[in-house]
């Protein structure tokens, strides 16, 4: 095979924009601790102090104050740092850095003053004359969690660290009790001299600790642990109040305009006896985007960029999220946007306007055409289709094209193929006949635009022979209850629940109980071999219960938002699940699917990853997600309607070139995303341009890769560009990280090379047929590969190259090869 490497470099000069994969372009730079801008107090109209009244019940009880100033222009800012706090009776309470602690039992008022405004907060202090009895669950375990002792990377790892294994974020208090006190011959605790306990000396680094310094004597955690030990390492009585909820202040999402960029949070815990407690200093905080805002261990959020961030607040098994949007005036920014085509644009533009990013101008026809074809059908348009569209003067030609693309058979097959990834269709999971039947079922569903609720219901409730009712293959791809639970949650709830199988989810509200509660819906699914070869019978038994392995408790069916479900003992639980899933009370179903549709068209979800919905990973534009979901439900779960709405928006049709006022935006859809074609799209595109189809097993020649019922593990080109093997329902299985193999596949592989030379130059003959002029040949090549006419400079250079070569065929091969290696060809933009 002739290598074209030298040529590659010479042609780099000839034609700009050759594609070479690059890795690690966005390296994260280390950040110094954020500096706080001085607060410009100005003149607020009104002050709000949270909490409105304070009760301190023990000497360790501390209440965080949060002071907000509301301004006439509608702005709000956190004034906690600058307010003055003066108790009427300084003998009863003291305030230090907006943290209120009791000194003596009694009643008083706390005056909070800023900018000439004052709010009086009544304070009641009790219990100061006796030490607080430390709760094991909400003191000891909370302290260990707060200081990271039981995090997944430390002693919360499955086998712990250094022989000391706690349960991750205290999901298993019973085991932690033993580990802390009685295990290893009481090694970790020194009861008569609490401060000498190894449990404290290690994280204080008084004894060498591989985890480093994790505890300081002025941490709240230190006091709690010392007191708990000094009180004899007591456990909570069975009737002790249980934590029922936590709440975060500010409760509503807040927009902060620079120089306002900080927000103190306050976290409150509620217990089953009705009591409450401020746990701001014991809760754990994390930011959904560290680059945009960080959060301190005491709950002070500091923003440094523009955009929305979710601060996830965790206290043991309870998780809440506080949403903050940081904006600032950008010099020279004036709002300018195309006229919104529909609500998508209105909501995207509203967010962009708020953040002061400019939407990119609408893309040219040629760019839109190529993008729409690739996104909707997976394929490039034919040359005639391109010419016709480019020459069509009709003002509504884009809308017409969208309608026609959505009605093509290629559309149904391409989107069935996408679902094949999710449903893990392959001969390994459902055997050869199953692959074809299941895929055909999917193609039909897309062809007849089966409403998504019915689509889901058919997958979840179809029982019988996989050869006769292909949707029954849904459960065939799973071997047991766990796999079925995880797949259903990932696909339909957008939740990665796997973690909760063994312990409470570290980033989400899913507990281990929830996991098995959800599993109860799938516990009765039966998978039996059928009488015919490669046939499987899927049906549900009338009995069968699931047990939570840690507690040994039998779990009733449970669904998020609905809680434990009371079902008749022999009720069909799959029906019950489908009813709940597609019912109006389910907050996930519609949102997850519209996000998936959005992500597949836009290259990035409103929630990203597409199947990782959780409070700590908030949607970039919640209003948009909600509007799409609402529209989806209003249109009876019509997926084609949602696709059409998105495709017709200016947002979808925007150009992909970054401009000075949106180059920093990666998440708010100010411009179209440039991204490498999927493995299958790229192979189809190469085949299409060269007119040389690829053969896939015994599929009819000419079947595009984007319409295959199953992956082709032996196709090196597809594998190099990230074709998944469909072993997981996770959207993450499809990887297209740039690699050297990819560059080699395009520049120097059989896939490309033989196509240029195939059949004694069949491709070149087709290019040169009918005695076409150089210009005509080059136009044809550019239209086929890039959906546009060559530019003047490209024509001149390519013609000069042709003129300089004696072997015209070889020279054309070189030029075609170069076009296939252009970034413009390899990318959708």
């Amino acid at each position, binding site marked *: 095979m002739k290598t074209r490497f030298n040529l590659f470099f010479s042609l780099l000069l000839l034609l700009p924009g050759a594609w070479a994969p690059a890795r690690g372009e966005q390296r994260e730079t280390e950040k110094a601790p954020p500096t706080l801008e001085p607060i410009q107090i100005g003149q607020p109209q009104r002050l709000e102090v949270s909490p409105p009244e304070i009760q301190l019940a023990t000497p360790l009880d501390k209440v965080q104050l949060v002071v907000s100033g509301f301004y006439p222009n509608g702005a709000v800012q956190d004034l906690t740092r600058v307010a003055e706090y003066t108790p009427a009776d300084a003998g009863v309470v003291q305030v230090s850095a907006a943290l209120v602690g009791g000194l003596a039992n009694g009643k008083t008022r706390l005056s909070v003053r800023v900018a000439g405004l004052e709010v009086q907060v009544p304070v009641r202090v009790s219990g100061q004359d006796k030490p607080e009895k430390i709760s094991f669950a909400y003191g000891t375990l909370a302290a260990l969690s707060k200081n990271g002792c039981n995090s997944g990377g430390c002693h919360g790892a499955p086998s712990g660290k250094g022989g000391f294994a706690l349960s991750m974020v205290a999901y298993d208090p019973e085991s932690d009790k033993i580990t802390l006190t009685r295990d290893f011959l009481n090694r970790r605790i020194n009861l008569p001299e609490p401060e000498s306990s190894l449990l404290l000396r290690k994280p204080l680094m008084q004894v060498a*600790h591989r985890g480093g310094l994790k505890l300081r004597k002025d941490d709240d955690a230190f006091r709690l642990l010392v007191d708990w030990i000094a009180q004899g390492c007591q456990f909570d009585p069975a009737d002790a109040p249980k934590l029922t909820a936590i709440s975060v202040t500010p409760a509503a999402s807040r927009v902060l305009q620079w120089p306002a960029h900080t927000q103190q949070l306050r976290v409150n815990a509620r217990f089953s006896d009705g009591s409450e407690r401020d746990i701001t200093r014991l809760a754990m905080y994390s930011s959904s985007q560290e680059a945009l805002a960080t959060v301190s261990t005491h709950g002070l959020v500091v923003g440094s960029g523009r955009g929305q961030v979710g601060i996830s607040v965790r206290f043991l098994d309870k998780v809440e999220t506080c949403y903050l949007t940081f904006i600032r005036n950008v010099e020279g920014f004036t709002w300018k946007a195309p006229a919104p085509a529909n609500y998508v644009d209105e909501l995207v533009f509203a967010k962009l306007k708020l953040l002061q990013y400019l939407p990119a101008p609408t893309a040219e026809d040629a760019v839109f055409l190529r993008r729409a074809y690739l996104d909707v059908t997976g394929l490039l348009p034919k040359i005639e289709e391109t010419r016709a569209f480019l020459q069509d003067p009709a003002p509504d030609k884009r809308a017409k094209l969208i309608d026609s693309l959505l009605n093509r058979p290629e559309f149904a097959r391409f989107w069935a193929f996408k679902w094949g990834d999710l449903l893990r269709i392959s001969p390994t999971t459902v055997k050869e006949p199953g692959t074809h039947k299941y895929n055909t079922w999917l193609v039909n569903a897309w062809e007849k635009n089966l409403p998504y609720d019915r689509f889901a219901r058919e997958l979840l409730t179809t029982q019988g022979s996989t050869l006769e009712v292909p949707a029954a293959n849904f459960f065939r791809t799973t071997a047991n209850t766990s796999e079925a639970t995880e797949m259903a949650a990932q696909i339909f709830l957008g939740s990665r629940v796997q973690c909760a199988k063994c312990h409470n989810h570290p980033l989400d509200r899913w507990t281990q109980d929830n996991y098995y509660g959800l599993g109860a819906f799938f516990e009765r699914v039966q998978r039996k071999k059928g009488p015919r070869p490669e046939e499987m019978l899927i049906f549900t038994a009338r009995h069968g219960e699931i047990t939570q392995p840690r507690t040994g408790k039998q779990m009733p069916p449970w669904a998020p938002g609905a809680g434990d479900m009371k079902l008749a003992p022999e009720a069909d639980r799959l029906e019950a699940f489908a009813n709940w899933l597609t019912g109006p009370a389910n907050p996930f179903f519609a949102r997850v699917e519209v996000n998936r549709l959005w992500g597949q068209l836009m290259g990035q979800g409103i929630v990203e990853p597409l199947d990782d919905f959780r409070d700590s990973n908030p949607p970039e534009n919640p209003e948009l997600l909600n509007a799409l979901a609402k529209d989806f439900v209003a249109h009876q779960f019509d997926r084609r309607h949602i696709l059409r709405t998105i495709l017709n928006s200016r947002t979808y049709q925007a150009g992909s070139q970054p401009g000075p006022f949106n180059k920093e935006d990666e998440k708010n859809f100010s411009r179209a995303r440039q991204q490498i074609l999927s493995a299958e799209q790229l192979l189809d595109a190469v085949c299409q341009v060269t007119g040389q189809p690829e053969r896939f097993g015994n599929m009819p020649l000419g079947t595009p890769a984007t319409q295959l019922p199953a992956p082709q593990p032996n196709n090196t080109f597809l594998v190099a560009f990230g074709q998944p093997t469909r072993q997981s329902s996770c959207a993450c299985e499809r990887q297209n990280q740039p690699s050297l193999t990819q560059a080699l596949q395009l520049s120097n592989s059989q896939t490309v090379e033989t196509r240029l030379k195939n059949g004694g130059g069949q491709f070149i003959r087709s290019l040169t047929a009918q005695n076409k002029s150089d210009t005509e040949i080059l136009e044809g090549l550019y239209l086929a590969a890039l959906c546009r006419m060559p530019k003047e400079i490209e024509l001149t250079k390519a013609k000069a190259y042709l003129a300089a070569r004696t072997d015209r065929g070889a020279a054309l091969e070189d030029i075609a090869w170069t076009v296939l290696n252009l970034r413009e060809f390899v990318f959708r933009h």
Partner: protein
Amino acid sequence: MKPASNLWFLLGLTLAAAIQPAGLRAAQPPVSFRAQIAPLLLSQCQTCHGPTEQKGGYRVDSFDFLSRNETPADPALTPSHPDKSALYNLLIAEDADERMPKKAEPLPKAQVELIKRWIAEGASYDGGEATASLVEIIPARLHPKAPEAYSLPLPVTALTFSPDGSELFASGLRELSVWNPADGKLLRRIPNIAPRTYHLCFSPDGSSLAAASGEPGEFGELRLFDPKSGAMLRQLLSSTDTLLDVKFSPDGTLLAVAGADHSLSIFELPSGRRRHKLLVHSDAVTAVAFSPDGTLVASVSLDRGAKVFNAATGKLVTTYRDHQAPLYTVAFTQDGKEVLSAGRDKAAHQWNVAEGKKQRELGGLGDILKLLPNGDQIYLAGSAKKLSQAGAADLKPGRGFEGSTDWIYSLTLDPNTQRLAAGSYDGNVTVWNLGDGKQATHFNASPGYSPASQASAKR
């Protein structure tokens, strides 16, 4: 290194020593490596730069390792020149990522100064053999006084009857307490003991009491005491973590010691020479036992493994791997052909020495932390808060002894008075008469502790 620079180096040393002002030395006694530097290196550096881990290829667990200077360009130790010694420079580095100890606050100034001064004074070594490990050269510790009265009970992790059965020795905090087993009265307290003691046992001739003890995560000590006066007779071993068990061979000529530093050592008596240091377990070794003829030693570990060694050669005879949880206790059967082992997997296993194959097991008794053989019987105790008896050969369950109030950590038996005693997590000791199985006494072995005072402290 070129010979010329060697010469320069030597010259520098001599010069440095020569020009050191005599007055300075007289004002302050020179820094002792074994007494002042070694303990510091042990507590601050050895976890990451010692026998188990050598971060950056560097170790400090002996003077030999410390002074090797593996990277001549950046020597760890340049005598008389702290500023040319990485050992010092890394302690004062500005960059927190470079400074030692990693991920921690800088060492206190006084400690850094001490190291600086030691190097400036010529980095001399006063610990004997340069390859001896740091723990072995540091002087025997003096332990602070025990609390006058305990605010909370200390778990009784070690308990033994005196050879005549008249006294009961129990572990305390930095002490041993001695009790009358008949009435539970405190007889005396033996001070200057490491903070926690994990096993006590008398030599077969009754002349000395061996204590395996230490401070968790910091050090371990094996000392022999005069049981009457409480005076320390000798320290046989100092280690980097607590010592958890000690047993004499039946003829009194050998001593086996188990350590949380993963080691199992066998000493010869009366010489005190360490015959073997066996590092074959991958976690703390929690218990050891001699076979009745003294030729074999069995050990169990938190690594879930049980092993048998030849006491004379130190060679591994058998490994038993059928346990599913950390192990805490081990014993031989009367004929020495089988071993009983148990721990947190809630069943005692009996297996043969020849093949390491399980013969039978006894479950239903919770986590078993102590096995105590007595002729053809065996006593088992642990998380079930009671003592159970079984046939040592057939593991046939026998009677139970009730009365303990928490996890049992220690067991002892006196053949003369036919008494059995158990010490538990809540600091209590329960004594039973073997004859009728009835409880003789039950008392709290933390001197001065009173539940009433604790209750009032809690409120």
